């Protein structure tokens, strides 16, 4: 008997059985307690509450919403707002992070120091503190609607948000927007073709110059073809507040601003370390076979730097999505505020609601890690 216990395999199996038993016992214990507690307190169970009438209004709903809509629709509004903040945040954080990451490697001493100082300052301040700071200090200090700060092009800022002109959906606008979409798709295809040509014939094609000029010229041409008739709906002060145009709420501004500034520091670091990780020998080898500085960067340094820099950057995107949950502190109506906050308070079915909320974030995480795996697979060094 004792000899059997000394056998490693037997012990392994025993240990695992014990683990299963204790996990099951624990789950049974808390499950049983939960059922008793729920019964005693008269809390309902199940997901029928999603069809119940919400009875509250939402200020910023990307889809139409009124107080007679269901909690299911509240969930949808929250989910959409989470995705909107995440999407906008990712775009601006990438731009800022890329810029700062490159500036940190600049030969200019002052610029390098400013970029480093920016990173050292903002990554060491809790994100929640930054959100509250922008919301309570900076946006609160903005003037009232009557004394709004006015910028060129009919943009106004006051303590109720940012007001920007909204283009009318007439033929010109549609033409310009479609032309932009076409240009982006063609640049993508052109780049693919140019890479292929480069690999087979060795001839270089100036994708950046051609693409950039297309990006500027084509919309201008489209503007004139479409009737040269841009019509903006300008925000204007009527009574005590602004009407018309597009309003961006202070909650959204503070949240996105803080998320962008905080996440960009991490993205900048990832990009810097990616570029620095390319060994000096690679650059020297590129120079020795006669590549120009630009060619060396495009053909030798960047392909290797991207392989190292992208995975941490994608992880930062995931962090940004998770940090968007801090909207609850300023009341921006995303999933935590609307669903785990207001809906939970009204319905009281904590287990279901928090499970759904967690599931949303888990799904986002799974999608992101699938993306990461796909990228790593695609970027694996292909040895010929």
């Amino acid at each position, binding site marked *: 008997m004792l000899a059997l216990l000394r056998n490693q395999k037997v012990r392994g199996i025993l240990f695992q059985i014990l683990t299963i038993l204790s996990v099951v016992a624990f789950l049974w214990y808390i499950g049983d307690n939960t059922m008793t507690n729920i019964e005693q307190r008269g809390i309902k169970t199940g997901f029928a509450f999603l069809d119940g009438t919400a009875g509250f209004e939402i200020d910023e709903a990307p889809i139409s919403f009124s107080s007679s809509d269901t909690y299911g629709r509240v969930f949808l509004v929250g989910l959409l707002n989470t995705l909107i903040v995440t999407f906008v945040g990712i775009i601006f954080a990438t731009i800022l992070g890329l810029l700062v990451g490159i500036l940190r490697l600049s030969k*200019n001493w*002052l610029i390098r120091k400013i970029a480093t100082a920016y990173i050292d300052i903002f990554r060491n301040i809790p994100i929640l503190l930054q959100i509250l700071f922008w919301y309570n200090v900076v946006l609160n200090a903005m003037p009232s609607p009557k004394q709004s700060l006015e910028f060129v092009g009919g943009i106004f800022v006051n303590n109720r948000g940012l007001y920007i002109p909204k283009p009318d959906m007439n033929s010109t606008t549609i033409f310009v927007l479609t032309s932009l979409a076409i240009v982006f798709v063609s640049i993508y295809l052109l780049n693919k073709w140019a890479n292929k040509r480069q690999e087979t014939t060795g001839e270089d094609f100036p994708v950046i110059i051609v693409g950039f000029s297309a990006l500027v010229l084509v919309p201008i041409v489209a503007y004139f073809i479409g009737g040269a008739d841009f019509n903006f709906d300008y925000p204007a002060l009527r009574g005590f507040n602004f009407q018309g145009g597009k309003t961006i709420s202070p909650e959204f501004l503070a949240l996105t601003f803080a998320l962008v500034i905080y996440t960009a520091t991490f993205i900048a670091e990832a990009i810097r370390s990616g570029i620095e990780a390319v060994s000096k020998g690679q650059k020297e080898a590129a120079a020795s076979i006669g590549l120009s500085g630009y060619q060396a960067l495009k053909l030798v340094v960047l392909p290797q730097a991207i392989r190292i820099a992208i995975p941490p950057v994608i992880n930062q995107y995931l962090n940004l999505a998770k940090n968007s949950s801090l909207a609850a502190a300023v009341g921006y109506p995303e999933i935590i505020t609307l669903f785990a906050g207001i809906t939970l308070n009204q319905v009281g079915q904590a287990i279901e609601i928090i499970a759904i909320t967690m599931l949303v974030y*888990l799904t986002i995480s799974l999608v992101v890690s699938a993306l990461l795996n796909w990228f790593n697979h695609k970027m694996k060094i292909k040895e010929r």
Partner: protein
Amino acid sequence: MAVYELKQTLEAPSSTKGMIHWLKDNLFSTPINTLLTLSGVALLFYIIPPFLNWAVFDADFVGSTREQCTSGGACWVFIHAKIDMFMYGFYPAAEVWRLKTALALILVIVAIFKFFKSNKIRFSILTLYFIISYILISGGYFGLEHVPTEKWGGLMLTVVVATVGIIFSFPIGIIVAFGRQSDLPIIKSVCVTYVELIRGVPLITILFMSSIVLPLFFPEGVTFDKLLRALIGLTFFQAAYVAENIRGGLQSIPSGQYEAADAIGLSYWQKMILVILPQALKVAIPNLVGAFISLFQDTTLVLIIGLFDLLAMVRIAAADSYWLGMETEGYVFVTAIFWAFCYGMSRYSNKLEKQFNTNLK
């Protein structure tokens, strides 16, 4: 016969050292560089002087009443008046000496550590210290008045939450990391599920879970303190991240080390604790410090579930009708404290990284 003429010698370069050369090389080497430098200077000029004016030159530092803030800049008098609140929350003023004693004991411990190099003794001293500080802070024994956790707050609460989170997440994280590396499939899948579930959701959902759902899990009559609930959530959240970092360290250990430990007949736990873990921790420490920095930043989230940490104190202190409108000073002060803590830790982790790097090579 070719005639060679002596060419005029080139003038020596004006300087390869010194201020001018450095400026030329680093700031004004090309037109683009010059432009960048100028815009950098403009940016600094736009930010720094107004901030310094507000925070230092036009600010009021001395006094005790609002009326003494006359010069238009920051009113640091507010911080001065509310400093006890920022530091200790609503902790009774008569009992604050207990917190100060607990703080001062840290110095005593540092001194003792100089004399005792043995890890066992150090560990026992630390354990003793935490027990003593708990008794000091919470009271209820030895004639000390009991201070309920609702009165804890400010920086002291932030430090308590961060410390407890770090100390308890560490052993849990190590065990989960071992489990994840284990050959036993069920143990492994339990640990993987735990880590991936926790890392896939934001901390705030875990905190909601521990503050709202956790009480439902236990029979009527078992009640948890609000602070304890937050600590449970934070610890289990942090443990998943600690486990990931330690797993990174474990994976860097060559399999020869495991085999060697097996060959000399060590048991699983002897092998892991005496051979593998010390090496793995050394690799993982820089990342672990990084994880602890984010834990320290994450402690601010407890304000969402109604605890009064340092950040929450800003709102409470500025809600005082006498000091209305002093939020900016409060936020700047609190930002400075958080920044100093986090920056200090990240510097320390950089230092450790360098130290360990040279050791390995």
